[in-house]
């Protein structure tokens, strides 16, 4: 049984991980906490849903396309909104993404109604047994997909010139500009990539999760905890933090009771932050 729960926890944690990586990247580069991250996961799920409905694009196969759409959307969002508040007072930076989140969720309710939808006939479906562990294929596909995207981001940040520049900005902004790095341009790219992570996760989730306007809220909150747990600004820390949370959620949900599973997540977060204020792998960008 424990093996079954651990598997479920890790599978869930991988998807949380992808959402969290994007959040962590955005925080590391421009020092803002994107409270709209969950709402953007939700938007990506709807995009996935509509593409499935109108052009029968499977959500899993469509993941790269949806990630790309969300990348573009992230860049636009940066240029229209985020850029303007970055130099503003602290409170504006804190609240702008919060406002965006409320806007997106209410827009979804207004345009698409609060009804639950789900995608029929996704190609990844069914279940199978691996030894004594019962695995749902869509969840496995979503978590493997999340890990692939996470690995791509990891590679991009470490091995490409643009990735290195993004890291440099998150370590030391003014030194980065002395290298000839255009902060504005790289901010936009980093924000786009962060939102693309949320988008890819949303699309992978859309293959088995119910889709409704408030669906992203819990993902956003869990991602915040994962990022704080792993250390703000550390993308790999966020991934590890998220997998831990996935495990805590499934184990706690089973042994203590499903009504307490989120309480447990936030409790373990509080405990870890008391012991290690910078998170498990925190470097703490500021």
């Amino acid at each position: 049984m424990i093996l079954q729960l651990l598997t479920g926890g890790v599978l869930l944690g991988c998807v949380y991980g992808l959402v969290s990586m994007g959040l962590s990247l955005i925080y590391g580069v421009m020092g803002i906490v994107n409270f709209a991250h969950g709402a953007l996961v939700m938007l990506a799920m709807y995009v996935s849903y509509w593409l499935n409905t109108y052009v029968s694009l499977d959500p899993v196969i469509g993941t790269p396309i949806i990630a790309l759409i969300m990348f573009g959307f992230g860049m636009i969002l940066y240029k229209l909104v985020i850029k303007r508040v970055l130099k503003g007072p602290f409170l504006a930076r804190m609240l702008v993404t919060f406002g965006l989140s409320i806007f997106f969720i209410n827009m979804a309710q207004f345009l698409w109604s609060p009804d639950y939808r789900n995608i029929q006939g996704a190609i990844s479906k069914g279940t199978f047994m691996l030894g004594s562990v019962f695995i749902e294929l869509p969840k496995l596909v979503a978590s493997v997909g999340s890990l692939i995207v996470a690995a791509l981001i990891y590679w991009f940040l470490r091995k490409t010139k643009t990735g290195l520049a993004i890291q440099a900005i998150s370590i030391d902004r003014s030194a980065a500009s002395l290298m000839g790095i255009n902060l504005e341009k790289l901010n936009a790219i980093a924000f786009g990539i962060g939102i693309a992570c949320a988008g890819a996760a949303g699309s992978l989730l859309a293959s088995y999760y119910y889709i409704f306007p408030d669906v992203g809220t819990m993902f956003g909150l869990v991602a915040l905890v994962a990022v704080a747990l792993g250390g703000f600004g550390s993308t790999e820390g966020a991934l590890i933090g998220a997998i831990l949370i996935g495990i805590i959620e499934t184990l706690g949900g089973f042994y203590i009771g499903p009504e307490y599973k989120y309480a447990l997540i936030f409790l373990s977060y509080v405990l870890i932050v008391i012991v290690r204020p910078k998170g498990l792998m925190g470097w703490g960008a500021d």
Partner: protein
Amino acid sequence: MLNVVKCNAAYDGVPALVDVSFNIKEGEIVTLIGSNGTGKSTIARLVSGLIKASSGTIEFCGRRIEKLPAHEIVKLGLVHVPEGRHVFGKLNVKENLLLGAYTTNDEAEVRKRLDLVYKLFPILKERMYQKSWSMSGGQQQMLALGRGLMSNPKLLVLDEPSLGLMPVLCDELFAAIKKINEEGITVMLIEQRVLEALELCDRGYVIQNGRIVMEGTGSELIESDTVKKAYLGM
């Protein structure tokens, strides 16, 4: 090469520089000396575009640069190695150096510059894959210098490179600055080690309370009463 005319700058309304004018000619080592908090670093930050002047002009190689953003100024060949080194700690030595060459996409050119830096600072080649936070202060300073050289400077602005270094490393550092200058790179050196800086430089400026109060060749300044009394303790 660099011509700063009547520049004023302030932090949050508090004036930091008052009518600062100075110039640097190609091939020179020019030093700015003065005690802590007199505005030396502000001048470095001003010419590299990290802060903007409230009035005055800055001309570099015939172009007005006082309104350009920092990342554009680097491309023109004015490279600022900031006080306190500011290496990218989480990244290794080679990655730090490659970031110095961020503005060029020509790989052969990058390799050429890397070779030059490794020739000047062999330690950086040995420690190529070491995370830069784990290096000693002296090695980090060499890395900061090397990273500045990777930007292919015409004018290298060094802000307190000797800060926190032990004396034997300082000698090494000043020798390295001389070698860099011999490679044809103009140097603007901001220093608190007044005697060493004045011995090394062609010309120098003395700054007090955000104003330039004296200028002259290195030996003139060493001999002057003001400098002797205020900075050399004689």
